[in-house]
Structures are given as C-alpha cells and as structure tokens.
C-alpha cells in the first residue's frame, strides 16, 4: 500500500474517533471525563497565571524595576532569592489591593453575596471572548452566575466543570445585556461588535443621550442583577431615518487586565426558555 494511502486511512480513522467523542460530548456523556482532565489543568493554569500576572506587573511598572535593579546591585549575594521574594510580595500586595477594592464593592452591595476567584486563562480560540476562572461546581459556581469586578460587569458563567468555569465576557458578540442609561433614564441593549467595540442599541430616537453618561444593567430579562456599571457613553450615532439610535461605550472594566473577579453567587437567572409563549 502506498504511504500516502495509509496516512489517509490513519487521518480518517482519527477523525472518526474524534467525531465519536464530539457526539458523546454534545450528548453530555463526556462531562465527567472532561472535568477529571481539567482538574490538574486548572492547578497548572492557576500556577502559571499567577506567575504571568506577577511578571506583567513587574514589566508594566518601570519605576519599580529600576528600584529593584538598584537593590539587586546592592545585594549581589542574595540576588536570586531577593528577586523572587519581591515578585511574590508585590503580587500579594497587588492581590490584596484588588481584594480590598472588591471587598468595598461587595460591602456597598449587601443584597448580593460574592465569591472572589482568580482568572486563570482565556479561551484558546481567538474567535471567542471568554475567560477561565479558578473554581467550578465544587466551589458552588453554576451556569448563569454574573461575574463582576469593582469596576463593573465582566460577564456571566456559561460552562462549569468541577474545578474550573468559563465566563463569557460582555465583549463576546453572543452576549446581550439589557441596559439603562443613568441620566436619560432610557433602556437599550448592549450589542458587542465583532471588532471589539461595545454599542448600546435600541435607544429611543426621542431621547437625548449625552457623552459620558453612565450605562448600567437594567435587570430586564433576568440574566443580570440591576445597576451594575458597564461603561460610559463615548459617542452617539443618530440618524433620522432609523427607528433607534446607537451609542458607542467605553467599558468600565479593563478586559485586558483582569486578574481577580467576583462571582455573584446568590443570583439565579430567570430560565426564560421554560416560559411558555
């Protein structure tokens, strides 16, 4: 048999095997196995994510690097040990700072109960905008729980395994959030664009929307609690011949720099798909 034929047979066999796995996964039979494999994955991911966060912190603050370098020169004999210690302490301080801010936020919203967790990775597909968080069904997380930071809304949990969960960001074009504009007291629909921009659509034409106006969750639809900040109006697109006006918003959360998030654990989204028409 020619070599290319045998390679084609191997490729077809492997594809058939994967198709079988795909069917099992779609029917939900693979979930326990996926959870089992993801258990060590989440441990390694969080270990690497912590070090990556520490390194990014170090690289993004050149002033601190300079002082670190000075210190390293002075203490040549302890250079490696000290360097590691500083990185670790700085990461702890940054984490404590974030946690303090999150705690302030949680105290200001006593009706919700929160659980803080680390972001340990992002979706490996560049076509999807979601993040992986440390903790899953073992920690009490479930599908639909909203995810926030002290700055505002991040997204909601869409997939849960025992030790890890996937959060769909509000930047994902599949995510739709009912919002309200704080000053003009009107509703709209957050519609993320494929180029990464966040738009608020379906704003009544008669309403005057001002730049800098705060956009909050409206709670309509039951997917998110009310009054979580999402961003500020950057500019408005209004055409007389259209039914609605749109606004581009600047998200309040810096999605490139999320290390710790809060999960609102006592919020149960309304199962709208079960409501009969």
């Amino acid at each position, binding site marked *: 048999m020619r*070599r290319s034929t045998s390679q084609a047979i191997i490729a077809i066999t492997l594809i058939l095997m994967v198709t079988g796995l*795909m069917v099992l*996964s779609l029917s939900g039979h693979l979930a326990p196995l996926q959870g089992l494999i*993801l258990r060590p994955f989440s441990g390694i991911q969080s270990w690497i994510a912590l070090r990556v966060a520490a390194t990014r912190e170090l690289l993004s603050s050149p002033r601190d690097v300079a002082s670190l370098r000075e210190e390293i020169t002075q203490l040549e004999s302890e250079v490696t040990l000290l360097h590691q210690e500083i990185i670790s302490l700085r990461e702890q301080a940054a984490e404590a700072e974030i946690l303090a801010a999150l705690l302030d936020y949680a105290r200001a919203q006593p009706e919700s109960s929160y659980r803080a967790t680390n972001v340990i990775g992002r979706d490996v597909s560049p076509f999807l905008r979601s993040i992986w968080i440390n903790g899953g069904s073992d920690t009490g997380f479930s599908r639909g729980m909203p995810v926030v930071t002290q700055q505002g809304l991040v997204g909601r949990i869409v997939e849960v395994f025992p030790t890890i969960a996937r959060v769909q960001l509000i930047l994902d074009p599949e995510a739709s959030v009912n919002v309200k504009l704080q000053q003009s007291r009107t509703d709209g629909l957050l519609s993320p664009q494929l180029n990464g921009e966040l738009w608020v659509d379906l704003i009544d034409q008669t309403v005057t929307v001002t730049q800098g106006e705060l956009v909050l969750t409206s709670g309509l639809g039951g997917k998110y609690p009310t009054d979580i900040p999402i961003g500020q109006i950057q500019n408005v697109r209004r055409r007389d011949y259209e039914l609605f006006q749109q606004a581009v918003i600047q998200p309040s959360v810096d999605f490139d720099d999320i290390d710790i998030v809060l999960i609102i654990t006592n919020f149960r989204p309304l199962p709208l798909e079960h409501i009969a028409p």
Partner: protein
Amino acid sequence: MAYLIGVPLLALLSIIQSTVLSHLQLFEGRPDLVLLAVVGWSLAGRTEEAMVWGMIGGLFLDLLSGLPFGSSAIALILVAFLVSLSEGRFWEAHLLMPLSATLVASLTFHILGMGAVLLTGRALDPSLALTRVILPSTFLNLVLALPTAQLAGGLRDRLFPPEVEI
C-alpha cells in the same frame, strides 16, 4: 516514546496558549503553539505520530475553548495530514519548507476554526476575522516556524537517533 513526551508537552503547550499567549497578541491573533508542534513533528518525518499528536493536542485545546469539543482536533488532524503530503517530494528538504507548511497549516487551521464558529450559529464577520485574527496569527506562526522545525528535528534525533550501519 514519542507519545510519552508528546502528551505532556501538548498539554503544557495548550495551557500556555490559554494563560500566557492570551497576553501576547498582535491585533487579536496569537501564535498557535500546538499547531506549531504538530507541524514541526510532521516536518521532522514523524507524520503518523504527528496526526495522533494533532488529535491529542486538539482535544486539549478543545477542553480550554468554548468551541464544540473535537473541532480543533479534527482541524489539527487535517493539518498534519496536509503537511504529511509533502513527505518524499523533492522539495521536502528545502529551507522554505517549514515556512510554506506553516503558512498552509495556519490558514487551514483558522479557516476550519472559523467554520466551527459559524456552524454553531455565532455571528462572525469573515473579513474582520481575516484581518484581525487569521493573518496576524499566521504571521506570528511564521515567525516561530523555523525555530520550531529546528527544535522538532533536534527532539527527533534525540528520541530516534539515526541508525548507522558499521
């Protein structure tokens, strides 16, 4: 032996892809480490193993992705198969072979990934995907193609030293 090293290596590469490379973006494109490993191993002459690596690495990627489970695995098996077609041809040893194989592999992998996204009914603008994801990712993969091919060749020589007749 190739699987003993390949499975943990592919698991580690997919974790790095999720944790580290998500911060190293060109537009929204990132280098695809698992794809590079599969292409590199295939170019090193271990074509059948590379297809199995493609399946295993793809399944690891699918665990860490919201795409349907198995879609990356199928794409990587096809990529490994495409690269294996160059085996035995007169241009196989050409210096530009890793680059052209990586170019074809990256484009195939991302177009299949885009197809999986569209099949699940998600909104995706193909022209934006091309300019913001596919081309930047392909460029980053091309940058890493030659060192990966060197590393894969080195690993092959260590694991399977060429037999010498005395």
